[in-house]
């Protein structure tokens, strides 16, 4: 190669080299810039994904992402807690296995309603369904399903919420309202009853007076009639006043005086009997309703039980006969009479229900016994009903716990009774029971001490609290 050619080549190589260097610098700068941009973009992405993850995990609703077959791919923390399974376990579980049979079909139906033409479909509103926890326990939930396509594959998102608490609150609310309505009804009934009792009392009084007056007057009339008989016999013996005695006899026969003599006293007796029964009931109603008594008053519990039995007769007379075994020396008990009556009534009604639910041809038995010992008065109410199953024994005093259908039970009876006995009277309310045999509820209340006065008893009660 000659010098000229070599010089040309050298010049070209130099030019090419500086171009290559410039290119390298440009590339380096490009690389730096794009790196920086990438870093920024990736930081933004990381931030966004952390944000999304936090929302996903902290959401109080259950969020489940599944593939087209319904196999779970992601589950958030709420899902773990709600279904009682760990995320690892939830993954690869099928969505439908989290629901009970009926709900599975309902959920499948929701998914079917999606529009296949659309890439994303949110199906309808939330629907109430029944979910299954890990151990198979069913619980109420609401579910919304959306179906969408991601990278050409079908996915489903289930958003659901455990609505157990809400359902319970709703039920409680319903029962409370029912109870309120019931107690308002009872209260107005009580007021009405005591009003009626008061009104009936006056006419009963004079009916009673009049009946007694008739009874005595009739006895007097009878002696007059007897004297007339003697007169008639004398006239016959002397064969005198034939016309007049004949007329008297004809009238007496027409009036059937012999029959009247016998029947009038017994019909007056029956009337008096009836009046006494009416006035007993009226007194019972008055005593039971005790409108307005909010003060501790010493009462005779035997009497109160008798009263309550007669007021509640209609509740038990078709299912049971009642017997009472009263302690004749029962001390007086300081109490709120209306409240204690309600406790006894609740226990009697429960006893009647228990007997009714046990069924059987013969009448059951409700036995009520009173006794006292060590300054305590007890009342036990024993029924021959169904008994309380082991599983329920811990709950029967809970407010709203009931095994009875709506309308028959509110689950309030025992909770109110317990509250009255334990809180308001410093007493106890306990039970023994055997399934299929019967139950005994026992109330104990502090009695008025034989020597003590009311105020002392109250002081003692307070001390004990």
């Amino acid at each position, binding site marked *: 190669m000659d010098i000229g050619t070599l010089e040309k080549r050298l010049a*070209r190589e*130099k030019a*090419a080299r500086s*171009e290559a260097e410039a290119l390298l610098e440009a590339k380096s700068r490009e690389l730096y810039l794009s790196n920086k941009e990438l870093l920024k973009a990736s930081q933004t992405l990381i931030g966004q994904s952390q944000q999304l993850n936090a929302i996903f995990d902290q959401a109080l609703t259950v969020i489940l992402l599944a593939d087209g077959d319904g196999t779970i791919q992601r589950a958030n923390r709420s899902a773990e807690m709600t279904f009682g399974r760990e995320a690892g376990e939830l993954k690869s579980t099928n969505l439908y296995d989290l629901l009970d049979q009926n709900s599975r079909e309902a959920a499948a139906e929701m998914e079917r309603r999606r529009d296949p033409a659309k890439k994303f479909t949110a199906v309808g509103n939330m629907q109430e369904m029944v979910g299954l926890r890990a151990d198979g326990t069913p619980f109420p939930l609401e579910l919304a399903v959306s179906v969408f396509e991601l990278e050409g594959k079908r996915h489903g998102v289930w958003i659901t919420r455990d609505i157990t608490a809400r359902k319970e609150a709703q039920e409680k609310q319903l029962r409370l309202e029912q109870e309120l309505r019931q107690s308002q009804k009872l209260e107005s009934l009580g007021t009405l009853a005591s009003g009626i009792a008061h009104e009936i009392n006056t006419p009963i009084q004079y009916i009673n007076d009049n009946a007694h007056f008739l009874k005595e007057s009739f006895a007097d009339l009878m002696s007059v009639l007897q004297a007339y008989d003697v007169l008639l016999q004398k006239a016959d013996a002397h064969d005198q006043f034939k016309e007049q005695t004949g007329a008297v006899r004809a009238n007496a026969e027409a009036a059937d005086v012999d029959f009247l003599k016998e029947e009038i006293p017994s019909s007056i007796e029956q009337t008096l009997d009836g009046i006494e029964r009416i006035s007993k009931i009226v007194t019972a109603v008055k005593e039971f309703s005790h409108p307005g008594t909010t003060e501790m008053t010493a009462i005779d519990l035997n009497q109160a039980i008798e009263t309550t039995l007669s007021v509640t007769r209609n509740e038990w007379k078709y299912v049971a006969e009642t017997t009472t075994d009263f302690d004749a020396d029962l001390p007086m008990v300081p109490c709120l009479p209306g409240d204690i009556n309600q406790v006894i009534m609740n226990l009697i009604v429960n006893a009647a229900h228990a007997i009714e639910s046990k069924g059987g041809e013969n009448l059951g038995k409700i036995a009520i016994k009173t006794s006292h010992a060590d300054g305590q008065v007890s009342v036990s109410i024993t029924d021959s009903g169904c008994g309380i199953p082991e599983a329920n024994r811990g709950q029967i005093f809970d407010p709203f716990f009931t095994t009875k259908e709506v309308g028959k039970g509110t689950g309030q009876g025992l909770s109110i009774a317990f509250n009255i006995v334990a809180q308001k009277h410093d007493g106890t309310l306990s039970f023994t029971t055997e399934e299929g045999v019967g139950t005994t509820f026992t109330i104990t209340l502090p009695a008025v001490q034989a020597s003590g006065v009311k105020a002392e008893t109250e002081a003692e009660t307070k001390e004990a609290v």
Partner: protein
Amino acid sequence: MKGVVFTEFLEMVDDKFSPEITERIIDNADLASNGAYTAVGTYDHTELVKLVINLAAETGAEVPDLVRTFGEHFFHRLVAIYPHFVDDDQDVFAFLESVENYIHIEVRKLYPDADLPSVKTERPGDGQLILTYESKRCLADAAHGLILGCLDHFKVKDKVSIDRKDESEGKGSRVRFNLSKAA
């Protein structure tokens, strides 16, 4: 067009003809780059056309023959520069199929501004391969040479015949190469 094509071309002219001819065809071509090429740079592909035409004038050879010869030479150089793209145990047809699906894709990662042709392949039957070259740079002759270089590299030059059909009215922008292995 990448500078590597130009540097390899000029080296081939140095080898096959002479450095003096190389200088002359550059001098006579009036090039924007002044013929100072670096392999990683990018230049107007018409500069190559001018250089080839000048080389034809210098040597009396036909342009298509020169371009094909360059293609063949270029293939051997590519193998030397990028040995990892070529697996010598591979079947030659499988290798040719990998140009479009793998090699040129890798090239684009190195040089996002590379002007690469489309090199589609199909296998109509046993021992047959149809390779369809398509590029607006109309370098079917270069493609032809590259294929020859490839057959040479895999030592099957006399076992595979090439039947070439222009599908672009002689413009060389779309050409079919039917390759058949001898039975």
